[in-house]
């Protein structure tokens, strides 16, 4: 798998589960490296992967701003210190690294800091084969705070009409506010082919794949177990299948 994938959708449709399943697949590809970025302020991906949040990007931003207020510094030192702290902020498990973005920035304009942060994340992401962004619904934030260019906008929905409408809205917003190469829909918690066919007819979004309702995934989720330890199961097989067609 290669590329930068932003996973978006309505809250509760399974974005984080999908990001965790894709992260789990990274471990199978020993010669590749993955970076999972939790851009959802709720911070669920850390729990799904059981990887600690050492420092969020927003913590880093605050620490840099505090440092500017107490020390005399310039842009070169600022950029270098952001690079340093960004590497410190990574949690790692084998060939997978994890970074949490944290809550959106507070008031006050620190454009230079924000720009350096985004550039530092982009440079760091360049060292990974696959970058997965578990995004919040406000998709334009991804471009502003995380990554300027996305390869694939992966819109996730469950079978609900509301989930599909939100996915379509996100796509419309992304068309105006985001730079991405392609976009497509993934339907989660599908119980039958018939259900899938009905959903396909009710949306104009191109269908990239679907995930079955999976008892094993539910159990892991309920028990708060790490998806990185998930044994082979229908969802993982479906994501593996999806990953072959994904990239990008």
């Amino acid at each position, binding site marked *: 798998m290669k590329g930068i994938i932003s996973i978006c959708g309505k809250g509760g449709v399974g974005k984080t589960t999908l990001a965790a399943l894709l992260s789990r697949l990274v471990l199978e590809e020993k010669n590749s*490296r993955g970076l999972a970025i939790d851009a959802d302020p709720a911070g669920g991906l850390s729990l799904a992967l059981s990887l600690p949040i050492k420092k969020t990007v927003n913590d880093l931003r605050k620490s840099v701003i505090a*440092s500017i207020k107490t*020390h*005399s*510094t*310039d842009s*070169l*030192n600022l950029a*270098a*210190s952001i*690079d*340093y*702290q960004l*590497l*410190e902020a990574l949690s*790692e498990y*084998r*060939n997978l*690294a994890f970074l949490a973005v944290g809550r959106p920035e507070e008031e006050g304009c620190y454009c230079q800091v924000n720009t350096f942060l985004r550039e530092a994340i982009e440079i*760091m992401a360049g*060292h*990974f084969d696959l970058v997965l962004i578990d995004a919040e619904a406000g998709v334009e934030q991804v471009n502003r705070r995380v990554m300027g260019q996305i390869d694939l906008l992966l819109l996730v929905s469950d079978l609900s009409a509301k989930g599909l409408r939100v996915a379509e809205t996100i796509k419309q917003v992304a068309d105006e506010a985001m730079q991405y190469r392609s976009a497509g829909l993934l339907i989660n918690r599908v119980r039958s082919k018939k259900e899938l066919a009905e959903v396909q007819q009710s949306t104009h979004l191109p269908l990239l794949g679907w995930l079955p309702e999976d008892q094993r995934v539910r159990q892991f989720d309920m028990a708060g177990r790490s998806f990185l330890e998930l044994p082979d199961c229908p969802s993982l097989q479906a994501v593996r299948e999806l990953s072959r067609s994904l990239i990008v």
Partner: protein
Amino acid sequence: MPEQAATFLASPSLLAPKVPPCRDRSEKMGLFDESIGSISDYLEVARYRGLLRQSCYDSFAVWPEKRSLVLQEDTGLELGGSIGSLFLLLWTNRRDLVRAGSISIIGPDLPERESRRLPFGLVALVQGDFQDEYDTYRDIREVIFDTHLEGVSSRFWPDSGQVWCRVSREALQKGFALNRLGGTLIKRLSALPGLEGVELVFITDQEELKRLKKPAEKVQDIVEALIKMYEEMHFDCETCEYQEVCEEVAGLKEIRDRLREKRGRQ
């Protein structure tokens, strides 16, 4: 005492003045001349204690350059960072203060390591015909921060005086050692216009790092005062937190007066 260190053993000139006097009256005292003097004194003492190993820059003892991000699972050795680190950059116009091409190591070199983490200090003493102090500082930093070695991730936090490197197992197996890092830095720095010589000191011993804490704080104060002068438009010395440093370091005072006059004319 290591055999190599014994070759350089000499009486420390502890009673000598920290900085040799300027050779002619037109020569101005540089921003860091006194700090370089303190570091030279420290090196003399380290040599006397048999802790210092010194080699000369060899243009063949360099390392391939490539931007790398070494993940934990590939890391063979971590240098500096949270277990203790020091990054010091000093420059001067005076040739007699810098041993051009010298690479000194205090503490174990990388092949001699006994653990997967070592404290790390990098002290760069740079000499040249420098016209503008801030341009010089920016140019040297740009080169150091932008030197990326294959199988090595290096990060600098200049405002905290910290440096942190992850060295991959593969790089260590291929023979990466401090003289390779030093050689590559000297090679790259030497391409800077006006630069005449670079001396590097690497420290991988926690106690030795502590000995440089005081000179390091002084250097940091001078650098911050310098940045403030160049980055801020107005000088209000009465309220400035660096007033004491400026009064103490002759070079800073001269820069301040020069910039003040220049901006007053604009």
